[in-house]
């Protein structure tokens, strides 16, 4: 039984921040983070990036000291990731904003369209429908955040939330402004267009929910490792035959349907940006799957079946 010694250096200055004596060989990085936190209370574990190489990737909590390529005196590097915020908190803030902001415009608060239009209602049924759909979408997301999602990383940097909120809240305000405007023009093809959009909307929401549940079930045992998701008995999950990230596919579908329902350019623009962002995320995920699993299904594309 050999006990390890661990020194932790600042990644930039290489100054020794701490020296841990008599560390068990089977100690995990999580335990080392806790020990480091005791010495530096302001650097709680979620803020600590512990790595083997000053410019390398952060080590995961589950890694075990003796399995790392280090001698019995291990040198690790520390980088402060800055204040962190939990993913659940992030999503709650990001999604509650648009929900309430939309209402400000739907109910025509006085400061939005002027005093003459305050608290009036739109004569167009599609405007009410749009409010229901938009709210449904964000309430669903909030429910999923609380009850369904299981996150692999606990946290993200605090400054991201300001940026993200500006984006989501800002767009919500922009599109809500036009949909609920007194001069709003309903879709050119009337009821046909609206009904088609509603059906597409519901199908995509159901699809997205199914995928989120399926992904969550992969981690039912509490593990944080990645597994290949497969189609289940639920027909909505059959999209897994063709794409790696059907949740993103369905999400884009939801926004396309909302664009058709409202026939509103800002909604279309938001949809386009969502599509671009999700394609980037989907490609990332897809290539990670390909790298990790040799037997990954070859028919699958990242986000659009056969195309993208």
């Amino acid at each position, binding site marked *: 039984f050999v006990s390890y010694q661990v020194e932790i250096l600042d990644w930039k200055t290489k100054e020794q921040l701490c020296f841990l004596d008599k560390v068990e060989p089977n100690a995990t990085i999580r335990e080392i983070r806790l020990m480091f936190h005791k010495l530096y209370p302001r650097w709680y574990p979620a803020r600590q990036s512990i790595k083997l190489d000053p410019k390398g990737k952060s080590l995961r909590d589950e890694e075990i000291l003796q399995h790392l390529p280090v001698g019995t005196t291990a040198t690790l590097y520390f980088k402060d990731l800055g204040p962190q915020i939990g993913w659940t908190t992030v999503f709650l803030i990001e999604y509650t904003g648009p929900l309430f902001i939309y209402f400000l415009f739907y109910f025509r608060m006085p400061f939005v369209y002027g005093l003459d239009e305050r608290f009036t209602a739109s004569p167009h049924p599609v405007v009410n429908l749009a409010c229901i759909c938009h709210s449904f979408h964000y309430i669903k997301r909030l429910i999923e955040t609380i009850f369904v999602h299981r996150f692999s990383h606990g946290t993200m940097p605090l400054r991201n939330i300001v940026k993200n909120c500006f984006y989501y809240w800002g767009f919500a305000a922009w599109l809500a402004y*036009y*949909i609920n*405007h007194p*001069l*709003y*023009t309903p879709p*050119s093809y009337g009821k046909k267009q609206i009904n088609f959009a509603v059906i597409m909307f519901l199908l995509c929401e159901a699809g997205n929910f199914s995928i989120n549940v399926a992904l969550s079930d992969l981690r039912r045992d509490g593990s944080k490792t990645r597994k290949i998701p497969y189609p289940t008995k639920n027909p909505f999950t059959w999209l897994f035959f063709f794409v790696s990230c059907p949740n993103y596919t369905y999400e884009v579908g939801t926004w396309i349907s909302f664009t058709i329902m*409202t*026939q*509103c*350019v*800002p909604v279309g623009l938001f949809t386009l940006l969502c599509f671009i962002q999700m394609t980037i995320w989907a490609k990332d995920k897809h290539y990670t799957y390909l790298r990790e699993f040799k037997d990954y299904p070859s028919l699958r594309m990242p986000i659009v079946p056969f195309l993208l």
Partner: protein
Amino acid sequence: MAASGSGGSRADNGYGGQQQPRRRKGPGALATAYLVIYNVVMTAGWLVIAVGLVRAYLAKGSYHSLYYSIEKPLKFFQTGALLEILHCAFGIVPSSVVLTAFQVMSRVFLTWAVTHSVKEVQTEDSVLLFVVSWTITEIIRYSFYTFSLLNHLPYLIKWARYTLFIILYPMGVTGELLTIYAALPFVRQSGLYSISLPNKYNFSFDYYTFLILVMISYIPLFPQLYFHMLHQRRKVLSHPDEHKKSE
């Protein structure tokens, strides 16, 4: 911020002067040849504009309304700079696509969406202010790239690139802002590029407000770019032996 050269040298952002040699895959021989031709052509183009300005000034005897004498080459060569975005996208130039796109687009915006579109401002002196600034800056910048690509960069060009901006940049920004400001009443009056409700796309856009926002955006952006160039200047000019690769 369109006034100065392409925001300094992102090529070495993280690595300062100590970039490990050949860690970045540089342009191949064919790409280098193309880039040399591109930069030579652009240098020549902006020289044409410079000469055009001088000749027009001598012929007219005044510096007013010189825009018309160089309108076409200005549009052609400034718009041609859009290619630089592709150079970054294809990796033959080690600059950030986003940064380059932003800078080129802001120049193209001023050339087409303001000066060309609002005819009444074409006789403003502020136009001359930014055209002169752009012309001098671009001649130096493109010859800098040309010489860098050929590995024979005269110190004078390097010095000029990293020094003249101190005057040219604020000069250009002043010209641009004054021009946009001059365009405002005409945009308001004609409703240029604006769309109002109601319409079947449920969209509205007020170009007048947009131009004001553009002007406001100079406030945070200009100092950042200016100080970045000053910082680059200190770094580059204090290592006269260091050879800065093209961007």
